């Protein structure tokens, strides 16, 4: 068992003792060498000079459109920093500074407190200084101990696209946010970080890598010697090419001038977004820090909410485009014969109920088959037929098309929308507060509790245009293509939907005839929706797709409180598509 005599040998004991003595005495020897023999040298170095690590910066990556037009550029400015323990008299120095630069001493003090990181670290106190101001400060160097300046770039936007929400903006990093950021990128308080949009999504790629210059300085902070050998160079960030077509984006933006809403155009075959407009908008350069608080408050309090990117974060009822979900269920399960007709008298009374449900056309559509029901968006046809479908089947189909989930577009803060299911209704209305038949009457019209974002509508139309398999939507042109989960339906179902959508625009009675193209060779297929909502006029929607030179493109137009989808959204969609096709032709001519 355990008790075995220890056989440790005196030789082994001495060997280990020797190792112990040897290692500790060699350490002591080195300490002695540094502290006693080389003491003078190190002591004078510690008294007079100190090696300072100066952070150097490089350019943030540029953002360009698909043709290489620069959308977001940098322009050089200077920032002023103060190192707390080197300041002799803070108030006096700040007062003197404020007479040179156009910033009040209070403002300097406010920034100083906001970005303070510790007694020995430089704190950003002013930004956007000109070269003249910097030269003046440099001339009076000795009056400003502890004040340094360094170059720092600000963002500048292409004049006409300075209000594109998706670009996003930069913000100063505050002390409290630093712990939440990626440590590897070495943020410091007062530096700029992508805070919204593309700037945030691709922060890692766009951000430069910092460098370090080691310099020896004297007690006044004056440079004595540059230790170039150990410097680490700074590298600029990667440039980013977007899928956006700047010309189209400009056109769409102008067309929405004075309206509220969103326009999206995408390439169905690649998932590239060619245009993403949200109106109303605001000038992105307000984030540069020169904006007055009052202007800011106006923007925040504006009830039209210009800060919201409606394309991905605006939630709206879907309207009758979701009738197509009903169509798929009807055809796939062979619940109706598409050629059978129903009579639309303008009113529908569900069995066992006295409530009247009305068609938008109060005179009724007369005899309606499936194709006509889609083309003229007849409510009665869908009221009748949706009664043949299970609630669960209907919501599952809607979810399959990507409603109720993020489209995974490369932008932050996308909203998921809502497709209410059984759980939702029971939770919100109680077990007996709703009936499956009743809610289906709402759902088939895309009304009720349904909420979608315009970009989800774009994904929906892309699924239809590609007959089930479409790439993920994206804004970065070099992002790898990946596909949404494939939706498998019979060709028959797709054919009926396509035929119906063809008639929406191209048949005489089609609800979207105003979107019809002048060019007879290219046909636009679409669906209008007029989404009723409690906030006023209905939202006008148009979704559609067309094919030019073998490539399919899709478009979504949503005008908030605009009125009828046919009357308001369709002509806008028609104009945008015509413009895009013309630009194609003029490109071909050149």
């Amino acid at each position, binding site marked *: 068992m355990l008790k075995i005599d*220890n056989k*440790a040998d005196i030789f082994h004991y001495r060997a*280990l*003792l020797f190792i*112990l003595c040897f290692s*500790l005495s060699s350490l002591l020897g080195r*300490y002695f060498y540094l502290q*006693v023999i080389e003491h003078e040298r190190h002591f004078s170095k*510690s008294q007079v000079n100190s090696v300072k690590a100066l952070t150097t910066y490089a350019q943030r990556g540029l953002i360009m459109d698909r043709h290489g037009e620069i959308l977001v550029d940098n322009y050089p400015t200077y920032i002023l920093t103060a190192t707390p323990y080197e300041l002799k008299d803070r108030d006096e120095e700040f007062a003197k500074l404020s007479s040179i630069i156009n910033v009040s001493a209070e403002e300097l003090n406010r920034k100083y407190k906001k970005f303070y990181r510790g007694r020995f670290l430089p704190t950003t106190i002013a930004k956007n200084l000109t070269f003249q101001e910097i030269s003046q400060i440099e001339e009076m160097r000795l009056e400003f101990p502890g004040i340094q300046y360094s170059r720092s770039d600000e963002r500048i936007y292409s004049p006409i696209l300075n209000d594109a929400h998706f670009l996003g903006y930069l913000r100063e990093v505050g002390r409290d946010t630093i712990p939440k950021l990626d440590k590897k990128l070495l943020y410091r308080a007062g530096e700029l970080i992508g805070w919204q949009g593309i700037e945030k999504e691709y922060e890692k790629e766009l951000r430069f890598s910092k460098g370090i210059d080691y310099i020896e300085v004297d007690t006044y902070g004056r440079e004595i010697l540059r230790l170039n050998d*150990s410097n680490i160079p700074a590298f600029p960030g990667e440039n980013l090419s977007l899928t956006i077509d700047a010309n189209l984006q400009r056109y769409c933006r102008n067309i929405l001038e004075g309206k509220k809403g969103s326009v999206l155009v995408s390439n169905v075959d690649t998932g590239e977004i060619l245009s993403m407009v949200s109106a109303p908008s605001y000038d992105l350069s307000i984030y540069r820090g020169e904006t007055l608080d009052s202007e800011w408050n106006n923007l925040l309090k504006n009830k039209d909410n210009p800060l919201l990117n409606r394309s991905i974060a605006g939630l709206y009822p879907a309207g009758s485009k979701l009738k197509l979900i009903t169509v798929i269920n009807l055809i796939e399960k062979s619940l109706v014969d598409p050629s059978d007709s129903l009579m639309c008298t303008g009113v529908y009374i569900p069995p066992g109920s006295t409530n009247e449900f009305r068609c938008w056309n109060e005179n009724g559509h007369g005899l309606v088959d499936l194709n006509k029901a889609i083309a003229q968006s007849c409510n009665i046809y869908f009221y009748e037929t949706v009664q043949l479908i299970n609630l669960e089947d209907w919501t599952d189909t809607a979810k399959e098309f990507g409603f109720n989930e993020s489209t995974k577009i490369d932008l932050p803060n996308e909203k998921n929308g809502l497709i209410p299911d059984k759980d939702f209704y029971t939770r919100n209305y109680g077990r007996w507060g709703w009936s499956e038949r009743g809610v289906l009457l709402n759902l088939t019209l895309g009304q009720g509790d349904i909420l979608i974002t315009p970009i989800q509508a774009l994904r929906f139309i892309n699924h239809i245009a590609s007959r089930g398999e479409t790439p993920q939507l994206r804004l970065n042109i070099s992002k790898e293509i990946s596909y949404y989960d494939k939706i498998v339906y019979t060709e028959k179902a797709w054919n009926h939907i396509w035929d119906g959508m063809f008639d929406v625009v191209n048949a005489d009675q089609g609800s979207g005839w105003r979107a019809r193209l002048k060019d007879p060779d290219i046909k636009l297929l679409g669906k209008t929706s007029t989404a009723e909502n409690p906030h006023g006029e209905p939202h006008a929607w148009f979704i559609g797709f067309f094919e030019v030179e073998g490539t399919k493109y899709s478009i979504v137009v949503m005008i908030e409180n605009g009125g009828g989808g046919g009357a308001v959204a369709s002509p806008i969609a028609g104009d945008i598509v015509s413009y895009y096709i013309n630009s194609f032709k003029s490109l071909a001519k050149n």
Partner: protein
Amino acid sequence: MAFINKFMLSGAKDSLFRLFFIITGLITFSLITLYSISDNPLSFNSSFYRQFIFLIFSSIVFIIVQNIQMKTVHDNSTIIFIGTVTLCIVPFFLAPVEYTYRWIDLGFFYIQPSEYLKCATVIVIAKYLSNHQLEVKDNSIVLIPSALTLLSALIVLNQPDLGTAVIICAPLLPMFLWAGVSNFMIFLMIAPVITVLAASNIISFTIWAIIMLIFFLIFEASILTKSILYFANIFTGLLTPFLWNNLAEYQKQRILTFLNPDLDPMGSAYHIIQSITAIGSGGLFGKGWGLGSQTQLKFLPVQESDFILSVIAEELGFFGIFCVMILCFLLIKTLLDIAFRSSDYFASLVIVGLASILLSHIFINSAMTIGLMPVKGLPIPFISAGGSFLLSCFIMIGLVVSFSKN
């Protein structure tokens, strides 16, 4: 003088008494230094205050551990080892903390299981060696302990934590030596490492080749075995620079980063420059407590743990460092004394292993502050701030006290 004599040459009871004084001395240095570098030592967040709390907690754990019977530890050593290894694998399945898989978040406290794997590995190897005492001259006895050590080291290396992986390997050879494994075998285990290290320079390699030749001539083994082993070593040495040079720059960089993942992106050279300036400027008696300019102006990085010796060197001078080193020497020597005097083979092996762990911590940490080793975040026992490490040091001493009672 009589007191010193009594202090240095005393029996088992006195050894424990001595241990108590040495550790109290080291902790005094620690608290004095942490008080000096804390801006507001009595606030809850200061490293001084936190260390103080950890000390109380660790002392309680120490009292518990030193009451554990050696037999319990011996009989359960395999379970202890397997348990600790499992704990070390757990972080790989959790969210990484600061890009590594070293810690388990207990909500109020992070524990670093690899701290305890060091002890567990020592205990399991000691058990194996003591159970196979009779075969100790058989060369195959080194296989299982080496494999267990490598296993532990590889897990920790993947966390990634090179420092602790090195520490886990450190006790192996001293324990072999202590157990009486043949000197030839021990030499064979060291030789390839030195060969690879010496291979970078033609002169050092030639000298090493000659030393190796002498050793091989002295040891007893068949000529064939000896010459095969000798030339295998030489060949490895000759091949090393060739292989290294054939790697592309980015591959070299990748290997270096793998070996030293903590490599500070802001340049560790800067840290060493600051540390050496701080140490050198301290002089014989230092700039005075709380008066070190490098320290107080925070030129010195991680001064509460990795570079705490530099603070002592700057503020208390060579004199302070000398005292610390003497205390460290006495600590390890006392442990060796206890091990040597211990009547139990298992206990004595464990104590030697623990002493090796503590010595490697002391050596690597000090060598780093004076630029003899690359920056590697290893703390120095009883002096550096840090709860998990302090606790593991107290557990080690607790084991020593418990084992020496036999």
